[in-house]
């Protein structure tokens, strides 16, 4: 379980997070949603320590991340896997080397064990026989899959995904969502996903936090979100006239 308590963050004069508190549960896909500029990415980066919050605390199973020193944070980070928006695969390394990197750096496994673990992860994301390919030879969806494989290679307790569907077609997005959901259940991880894709919300949103202008505006699950009838969240979900019309017809 991950808990954030009253997180605030400003960049110069601009206040981006204005005191956000939320709890993200184990074995569930926890989604942070909101419009562009609502503070989703900064919240996610504050949780993993890529951005230092001005105030507030981040707790990993009760362990205060913000109060940890560099060495303690390094230990926690070995329990964290992260899927970045563009995959963030290392360009100069092959797929196999990308996934093997955390094993090379942090484990004492022998080469055969490492290769077995890499192949297991590649199989898990349906990317077998791509070991020798470079990131430049992969499509957007394939990069995300390899990114997921790299994120889970050390069997993390916490998985963070920053806009996992951005730049993907709707069908591939569904495949990536399903993969994240399966892996979350399989590894019983605490998964936090930052997205503005309503398909993801309805497909895998076990727990949803809606941010608006740096504040937590709403919290619930995918069933509750459809009961919303007005306000900022309603405008976010039914952003287009087409969807509003569809909802009106469904009610009639």
């Amino acid at each position: 379980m991950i808990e954030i308590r009253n997180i605030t963050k400003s960049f110069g004069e601009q206040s981006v997070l204005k005191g956000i508190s939320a709890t993200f549960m184990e074995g569930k896909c926890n989604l942070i949603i909101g419009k562009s500029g609502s503070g989703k990415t900064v919240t996610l980066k504050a949780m993993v320590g890529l951005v230092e919050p001005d105030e507030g605390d981040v707790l990993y199973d009760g362990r205060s991340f913000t109060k940890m020193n560099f060495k303690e944070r390094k230990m926690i980070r070995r329990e964290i896997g992260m899927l970045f928006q563009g995959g963030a695969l290392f360009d100069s390394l092959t797929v196999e080397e990308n996934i093997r990197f955390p094993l090379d750096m942090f484990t004492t496994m022998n080469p055969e064990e490492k290769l077995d673990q890499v192949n297991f992860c590649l199989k898990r994301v349906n990317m077998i026989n791509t070991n020798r390919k470079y990131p430049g030879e992969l499509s957007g969806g394939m990069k995300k899959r390899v990114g997921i494989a790299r994120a889970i290679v050390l069997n993390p307790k916490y998985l963070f995904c920053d806009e996992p569907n951005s730049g993907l077609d709707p069908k591939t997005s569904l495949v990536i969502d399903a993969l994240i959901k399966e892996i979350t259940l399989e590894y019983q991880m605490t998964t936090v996903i930052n997205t503005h894709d309503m398909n993801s919300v309805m497909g895998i949103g076990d727990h949803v936090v809606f941010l608006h202008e740096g504040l937590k505006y709403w919290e619930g699950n995918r069933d509750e979100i459809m009961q919303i009838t007005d306000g900022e969240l309603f405008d976010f979900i039914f952003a287009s006239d087409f969807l509003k019309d569809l909802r009106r017809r469904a009610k009639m």
Partner: protein
Amino acid sequence: MSFLEEIGGYLIMIRHAFSKPEKAAMYSKETFRQMADIGVGSLPIIAIISTFIGAVTAVQFSYQLKSIGLVPMWWMGSIVRKGLILELAPTITALLLAGKVGSNIATELGSMRISEQIDAYEIMGVNTRSYLVGPKILASIVVVPMLIVLAVALGIIGGWAGGVLGHFFTTAEYVRGLQDDMKNWDVVVMFIKCVCFAFIIASVPCYKGYTVSGGALEIGRASTQAVVYSSIILIIVNFFIAFFLLDSGG
């Protein structure tokens, strides 16, 4: 960012770059990869330019000394040797590398920053300044002096070829000049310059690349700044090394 903030950021990066590595084997592998990138990648350009620098030094000095007529032509070997060891080989090689290697490093790290690859390393628990910056500086300190020694050797050969082909002096005269008044201190000064230049060539672009924020435009800007700043620093450091060291050991 103010000048003082830049200096402070640079010094902090350098301090972290040489902190204890997580896994020595991974760092040495990265250092060897960087050595190959910097060294092998720069060999052809260094070879061509240093050979012709030696040749043109021999031809131009011979032309001027011959017109004066008071200086024996066997001095040419000594002039080319001293010129290459003390100034031309270290400085011109360093400026070339500042352009080639410096822009490569700044662009590589800048792209990694923008595409979140550096963040990915951080999330894994890797000390990125130590893993990405340290090996580059270390590789540069090992490889750049080798390249400069090679530049001196090829420059001397170029000087011989230029002078002999232009009928300014004979091979025997050139060899006599090369062996005349050889001071070990000159070589020591050259190596001091090599190490200082190597450090600047790698560390300044590392800083500019590592601290990029924004997009592709900023990467280009950082790359240009890296080359400009390191070239200026090289020339200033070159002056101070010559000023303080050349008279002290000779």
